[in-house]
């Protein structure tokens, strides 16, 4: 398990290898809470402008510009306002937030405090996925430490700024990472997504203005305030500012969490050199899913020799997306029908059941994959799968349905050979390989 920065100073990963980096003392010794002090001498607009200038885009998956999201909050609203940290991290292939939560909890608290100060928020929630329950203790301890140091609670650092923190855990549902479902769950309801508009920034938690941000998004904020938005942006590209964490898994020698500057050149080098190359030297790269399971898988020939840069624009141009940065490397031993069947099962299992196309579509798709895997593939199945994906995509209530459709469409369209093999062997017994 590799945790390191390549092509930049470790910012997000600054405290990953420092002993007791999760404690307040060490956090302060390494510059912690200085940004908060700095921010508390700035106006709300100045803080938001710095975040805008940083070109920080949401690290939860959608990549929405954070400064802009913050500026949507009606600061003059008489209602209470909230910041909710999305620590639900459940996109398959994504595990970066876990390390931040475990080893650098104060960075998150500081980031949220800066946001809270800028937006007039007095209550912050950190929503953990159910499986991260064991990490909550670390955060609760950090919050307590911060409270003792007058960094959380009433009259923070002697000012009239009050801010309370609460941690909360979900019960194990991918959908609760979707921001509106997260809010429903946080309110104590079933984790169903809600209609947008109204967007959470205007009507979120308890129908009050709410900013929902990913862990990594929020831990970037102290760095931005410390170095200045413009400087932070310049670490990356014009539209994709700063650095970003990638959760690398799959068939590489050195899987782990990597911090790269946005615009890192290039993807091929990253896989074949930085991550230690292919796991088995005699097995070739077949595919890579760069942004978590919900983005289009890329074929090796879309990567090798194609100068793909790792940033929002570069990956879109290359036919995929940054998503959550869950970087899954796949070698030639993998049958894409098998891996896609697995992902389809995931989406079926995680569909919340609210809307027709996602609920019924994923169930149907799993049944088709089961049949194919049992040797009952039919030549027309590929077309049927694509048509069902088309009937889900753009029609579902929330993006989970779209994500399922993209993951499956990507595989069927880009790896037709694998599908052909199964669909032509109609009735010839069970599937061939595992991975």
């Amino acid at each position: 398990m590799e945790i390191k920065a390549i092509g930049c100073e470790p910012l997000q990963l600054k405290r990953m290898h420092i002993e007791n980096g999760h404690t307040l003392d060490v956090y302060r010794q390494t510059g912690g809470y200085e940004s908060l002090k700095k921010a508390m001498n700035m106006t709300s607009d100045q803080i938001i402008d710095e975040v805008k200038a940083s070109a920080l885009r949401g690290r939860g998956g959608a990549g929405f510009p954070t400064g802009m999201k913050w500026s949507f909050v009606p600061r003059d609203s008489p209602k209470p306002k909230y910041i909710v940290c999305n620590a639900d991290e459940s996109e398959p292939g994504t595990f970066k937030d876990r390390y931040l939560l475990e080893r650098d909890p104060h960075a998150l608290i500081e980031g949220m405090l800066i946001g809270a100060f800028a937006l007039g928020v007095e209550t912050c929630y950190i929503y953990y996925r159910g499986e991260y329950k064991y990490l909550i203790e670390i955060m609760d301890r950090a919050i307590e430490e911060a409270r003792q140091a007058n960094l959380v609670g009433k009259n923070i650092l002697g000012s009239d700024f009050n801010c309370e923190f609460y941690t909360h855990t979900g019960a194990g549902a991918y959908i609760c990472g979707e921001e509106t479902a997260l809010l429903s769950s946080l309110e104590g309801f079933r984790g169903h997504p809600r209609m947008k508009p109204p967007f959470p920034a205007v009507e979120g938690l308890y129908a009050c203005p709410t900013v929902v941000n990913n862990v990594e998004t929020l831990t970037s904020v102290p760095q931005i305030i410390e170095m200045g938005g413009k400087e932070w942006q310049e670490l990356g590209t014009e539209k994709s500012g700063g650095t970003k964490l990638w959760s690398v898994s799959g068939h590489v020698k050195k899987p782990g969490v990597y911090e790269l500057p946005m615009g890192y050149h290039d993807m091929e080098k990253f896989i074949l050199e930085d991550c230690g190359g292919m796991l088995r030297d005699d097995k070739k790269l077949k595919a890579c899913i760069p942004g978590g399971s919900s983005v289009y898988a890329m074929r090796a020939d879309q990567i090798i020799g194609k100068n793909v840069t790792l940033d929002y624009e570069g990956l879109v141009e290359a036919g995929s997306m940054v998503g959550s940065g869950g970087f899954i490397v796949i070698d030639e031993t993998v049958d894409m029908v098998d891996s896609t069947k697995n992902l389809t099962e995931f989406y079926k299992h995680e569909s919340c059941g609210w809307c027709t196309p996602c609920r019924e579509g994923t169930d149907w798709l799993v049944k088709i994959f089961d049949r194919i895997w049992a040797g009952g593939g039919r030549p027309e199945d590929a077309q049927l799968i694509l048509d069902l994906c088309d009937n889900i995509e753009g029609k579902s209530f929330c993006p989970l349905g779209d994500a399922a459709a993209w993951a499956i469409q990507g595989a069927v369209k880009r790896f037709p050979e694998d599908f052909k093999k199964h669909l032509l062997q109609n009735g010839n017994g069970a599937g061939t390989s595992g991975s």
Partner: protein
Amino acid sequence: MAEELIKVTIDGQEFEVEKGRPLIDVINEKGFGVPSFCYYADLELQASCRMCLVRIEKMPKLQASCVIRCTDGMEVTTKSEEIEKAQRAMGEFLLANHPLDCPVCDRGGECELQEVIFDWGDVEERFDEPKNAHPEKFLSPIVANDQQRCILCKRCTRVCHEWMGEDAIEAGNRGSNTVIGTYGGWLNCSQCGNCIEVCPTGTLLDGVYRHETRPWELDQTITTCTYCSDGCQLSVGSRADEVHRIVARDRYVNGINGEFLCIKGRFAHGFVNHGDRIKTPLIRYKKGGKLIPSTWDDAIAFAAERIKESKKAGVVATSRLTNETVHTLKRFADECRDGTSYAVSDTYDLAPFFENLSAPLCTHKEIRFAETIVVIGGDVDEEQPLTAKQIRQAVRNGGANLILVNDTPSRLSHQASQFIHVNPGTVEAFVLALADPSAADMAAAKMGIGRAEIDKARETANATKGDLIIMFGKELGAEAQAVAANLPSRHENRNVKLHPLAGYCNSVGASDMMPGRKPVADVVAGSDALLIAGSLSDEEFAAADLASKPFVAVQELFLTDTAAAADVVFPAASFAESDGTYTNNDGFVQRVRRAIDPVHQAKPDWMITSLLASELGADFGYSFSASAVFRSIAESHEAYEGLRYPDLKDETRPVRVKHKLVSGADVSGAVASLRDRVSQFPDAADKITEEPRVGHKLHRVTTMTGKTPQFHLLANGNPKPDDLLVSPLFQFNPDGSPKKEEESEVAAG
């Protein structure tokens, strides 16, 4: 609500519509039509079925038209290849795991899913994988459930939450395993059946009607419910002179209640064709003898003879009778024999209220959109369920203030913005406090509340700009009613409206029909020959000692205590067998329509009374037509002047009778005696803190409800059976005890 008009283009045609209206409504109203399942006007938006997709210019993907509000210049396409593909795809998805068992489904023929799919006509089934299968089961004695047919539109859970405030059902599990279920596997709710009614598919099913007929075999008769004073409109489904089910009609046109009904209105119709109905007239020739079946001619002649012989006759009407009947009884009293006294048996007499009425009655629609609602006494959830639903929606969906004054907590009190929890039996003191500020401190003390509570309620009322509705229940005695009726004239707000929480379906009408009535006890005591239409209440019956009366004639459906004590019993037709009208607590006079011919030898009540009258020499001029009786009503009651049956044809536009308003009446006498009475209330008392169980009144077994066997199980604790796949009726005795094995096998087999 004068709204700004804007322009919207639908399929190339331009329309002017009110800004902000739901696009789906506009599309449908303008005749374009878009299929939909989860959308339901006036329920929270759901947008989950994804059936109503349309294309809107400048929007990236197809949009669910149910959540789109019309804006100026919006250009909408409802028909294109892309849209049809999407809509058909949703239909295909919904049918994927659907059992396609329409031929054995009770909803077949009335199913919205079936309708949408049939409209396309040529749906090809591509899904040939194994379906997710589940057995059909019972959720309660009254609610049956086939989860395979569910399309998860969640209309059911929304009505249960928003209309009923019960939250008895919710979705469980996730994804394609999602299922609408109960908490604990058994429904312990009010059993209103509204979830069944709004279910677009055959998932939630009427357990009373289950597998009795196919819906299209039923004659549907639109009529008015015979239970409470709300006067819901409903459709009686009958085949071959048998009533099989009751439903609310189409949600868009069904009168004041839409698809809402309560358990009694929807399910308690078993009495109509029940075997215990009185089949022929009965005569007790000699005191102490038996009631012996006779002919109509003999029974009428016998009764007329006895009434002629009597010194003083008396007439007692009951408030479940039609206006036509009560009016005829009044004429009987006036025109047959001099000095005949008359009374109406009811939970309470509304005369003092109507005599002092200083503001109009409110309509149920006005309740839904009221700004402030003050409910003094009563038990709305159990006794006027439609009113309760309107209040709940006003609060929940409309943000209304709800001030509830009661000595007992209830479901509604959880929703009140101010629940004024008073000492037992002291709600009248609140009326006094409102009418006479100088008595407010004393009233507060008697009610066991702080004076501030009264001031706060008054402030809320004074700050109200929209409708301020005052409701009151049977706790209010004559003075308090008079004072309450007079309250609006003391209030600067012009939009004060009143809503009496009257007891029965025709409490208001019976009160209108019989001005000058006396208390039942007086009439009984002062007469040696009595004609009673319906039955006395238990207390009235106990006090009346009918056996000691020289002569008693009773018009009834069943041999109740009152009927059994009579010397002549006339078999009366039920509401499902008669034409007539009821006047509800909105003051709407609504039609009762004959769905089936009278059972056995029964006759409509008004006809029985007028036959008897003509035997006594009085000719009312209407022998066989209820509409002629109504004409007589219109001629003799000012509030009904000029009305005819054709005016009452359309239940979506109910007609209001014109109750006279008295403004500036002097009620100081009533206030003074109310103050006197309140001052005698005890100074201290223990408050009632226990909330009665849901259904404590709705599930009560009465002469009428008791004929539907499911009510016995509900009244006896609604036990959960071991086997959910078999009707609880086969597993339990009416008293709720489990049936012995051999018995239940015989019953089930």
